[in-house]
């Protein structure tokens, strides 16, 4: 979590690039075939579920028994029935699955949380990185300690708090998206703030000094000098927070109760559990639609994310 770790692991990325660009001494296939064999087997293992999801989502037969690598008949039917909430469940009756709602809820909650977390985290990180004040050490130690208690472990307490707050302020009570976002923000000062602080520490204070000599206030230095320089790291922190929030199940399932208010993990779990055999096709379509944007963004930001994850170890 330290700045040196962030720096050392980020240094690995250019090293990897250099290794690839190294003048290629062609290796003989008879020496390397086993490496390729391992690589191909590993790729098959990695792609196995992906292939089945893609083919099942386009397969006209939407039961799990008929899932196969090559769809028997390619159709967009699964996407249509899912997006129009017209999925036939186990008994042939319509199974309520407001997928567009879940999708939007998840995106809204995750985006808001990611943005707010990054800004709140950056603000705190700036204070810890640039100011020397009484209680700074203690504050940082305290943050570290508190972060050892993952928020969702206190799920019973959080449920009871939201329940009681909701009696006075129904706007942020049970079943409200706003309540979920606000609860998530409780973790904003945690790992992410440490990650950002580590990066802020590497930005030379001379830049701050020269801006201060020019008459800039602390707020102006923060927004005008430090934040733009840290933009790539902030983007990664935001994405890590986004993915983490998107995956969150415990708190979301506890607070959100109406079917159309649920998030993707909670909704999809409810939708698919107990009816795997019948709604597999529409489920695969939904999984594909939800995974594509995130996976694309992830691959795009990959080399920065790896360093961020190494430092924060938020996922995995």
């Amino acid at each position: 979590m330290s700045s040196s770790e962030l720096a050392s692991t980020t240094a690995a990325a250019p090293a990897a690039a250099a290794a690839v660009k190294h003048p290629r001494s062609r290796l003989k296939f008879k020496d390397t075939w086993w490496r390729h064999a391992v690589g191909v087997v590993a790729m098959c293992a990695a792609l196995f579920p992906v292939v089945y999801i893609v083919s099942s989502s386009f397969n006209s037969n939407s039961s799990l028994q008929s899932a196969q690598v090559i769809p028997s008949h390619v159709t967009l039917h699964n996407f249509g029935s899912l997006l129009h909430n017209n999925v036939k469940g186990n008994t042939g009756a319509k199974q309520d699955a407001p997928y567009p709602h879940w999708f939007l809820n998840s995106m809204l909650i995750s985006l808001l949380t990611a943005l707010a977390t990054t800004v709140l985290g950056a603000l705190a990180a700036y204070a810890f990185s640039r100011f020397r004040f009484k209680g700074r050490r203690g504050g940082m130690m305290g943050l570290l300690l508190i972060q050892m208690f993952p928020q969702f472990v206190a799920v019973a307490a959080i449920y009871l708090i939201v329940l009681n707050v909701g009696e006075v302020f129904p706007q942020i009570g049970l079943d409200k998206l706003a309540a979920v976002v606000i609860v998530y923000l409780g973790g904003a000062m945690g790992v992410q703030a440490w990650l950002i602080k580590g990066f802020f520490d590497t930005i030379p204070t001379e830049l701050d000094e020269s801006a201060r000599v020019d008459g800039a206030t602390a707020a102006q230095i923060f927004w005008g000098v430090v934040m733009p320089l840290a933009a790539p790291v902030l983007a990664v922190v935001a994405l890590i927070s986004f993915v983490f929030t998107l995956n969150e199940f415990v708190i979301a399932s506890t607070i959100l109760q109406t079917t159309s208010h649920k998030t993707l993990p909670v909704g999809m779990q409810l939708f698919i559990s107990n009816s795997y055999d019948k709604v597999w096709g529409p489920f695969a379509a939904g999984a594909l639609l939800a995974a594509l944007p995130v996976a694309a963004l992830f691959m795009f930001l990959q080399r920065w994310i790896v360093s961020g994850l190494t430092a924060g170890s938020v996922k995995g």
Partner: protein
Amino acid sequence: MSTASTPPNPAEPPAFHPGLIARSIAFFSGSVGLGIKVALLAASNALAVWALYVLATHHRWPALGVLVVATLLIDWVYLAPVRWTLPAKFLIPGTVFLVGFQIIPILFTIDVAFSNYSTGHILARDQAIAAIKINSLQPPANGRQYDIAPARDSSGRLVLVMHDETGGKVYLGTPKGLTELSKSDVTIGATGQPTAAKGYKLITGAELFTLDQQLRDYKVPTSGGAAIQPQGTAIGVELKPTLRYDSKRNVFVRITDGKVFHDNGLGSFVSGPDELEPGWKTHIGFRNFSRIIHDPLVRKPFLSIFVWTFVFAAATVFSSFAVGLFLAIVLDKRGLRFQKLYRSVLVIPYAIPGFLSLLVWAGLLNDDFGVINRVFGIHVPWLFGGNVFSWLPFISWPRIAVVLVSVWLTTPYFFLVSMGALQSIPDELTEAARVDGGGAWQIFRRVTLPLLLVAVAPLMIASFAFNFNNFNNVYLLTGGGPYNGASSIAGNTDILISYTYKLAIASGKGSDYGLASAVAIIIFFIVAGISGVSFWRTKSLESLR
């Protein structure tokens, strides 16, 4: 914007090229920035005033006091012309949420862990006593019956027009009590039922049946704690209390036989094995923790879950690391073809949101229709099966499935990390070892692995702490199941956090917030211990400078 890929060397400040973001941020930080600050502060104050008003209407005075003090303090910090509040300006926004949704839940968890807060123990004491009194109402042997007719009064409230056939009197029943009506105002039908009443509109037809639930809860109190309750829509029965609360002795006395139910100090009135419902919420000391140790109904599942949580996390981390390192060593060969392709494909499991992969795997591993069994021509009960070996009850197919899928999810992380770490080991070291006559295995064992572990060990500890609470990997795959008996909350693959979740929220067998919070505190101490070891090892506290 390539600052992340090549972190600026402290020796040479990075050149500052104001990009679009920088310029827009600079634009907003002048007098515009001041305007934004004032606007934000005004908005938060307006919100606070509104919240004060709402709190006042609900008579929540302590909360109101806290809000007033906090708002004034925040205003002062942002407006006071003193320099030393500067750090606070940056820390307050995050701290507000930190206190509200991280620190207070922790404190509340500790409070609940020492209480009996659970289904049946939710009310305050006096509310529970009132509820017990109502619950004790029973029709006596020779109770009076009334012919009733639900009606609406002039303002539309539900009332009962009642006819006492034996006494020949007519009454109006409301939740406030019984009042006699003049007989001339009420028409009585042939069956004794009131058919019309002056000043009241009798409810008839379809509307009557929609009142079913409302009537069942309707009680017209009469003298001595008794009450009249509708049975159906046409008959009202007088109920009498079977229990009497003696406030001096603080006991309930059963009226028929004088049996005494005393306060057991744990939130219930009991007499021997009999307990009056509901109980109330009260502090019970370390009883939740001692239940985990002494109560066989809690201890047995808890012990099994406790051990399995450690095994699950350790197996996931070590297997993932082993596979990831193996792949990194095999594929990280200079000049190897398709290296980039391997790398990007192997990262895919990591790029897909985990919850989706888990739900998909649950389908692929499905015992009956699953693809895995079909493709490999096997019949393994992955998710609902029992023990793999009859002589080793610890290892079950669902547990193996949970670890396998977790390894699938976690391996890319260790693959990437190992690759980075391998590339940062200077070639000179392995070269020197080779010159000294070391074999490939020896070089790996004595040079590469120790150097690698320096970088990767802290990440493995962090990953262990994460997987220790990896709720999704268990719950989305098996739901914590399969279950041994229908009565058990704890399933075969449940880890501590999913067990806590079920205890508190989702067991379908009532909530035990007290026990759930006690388990949460145990989790906290374990994770704190793991993290403590990690910090101690990596000395990351050095960055506190």
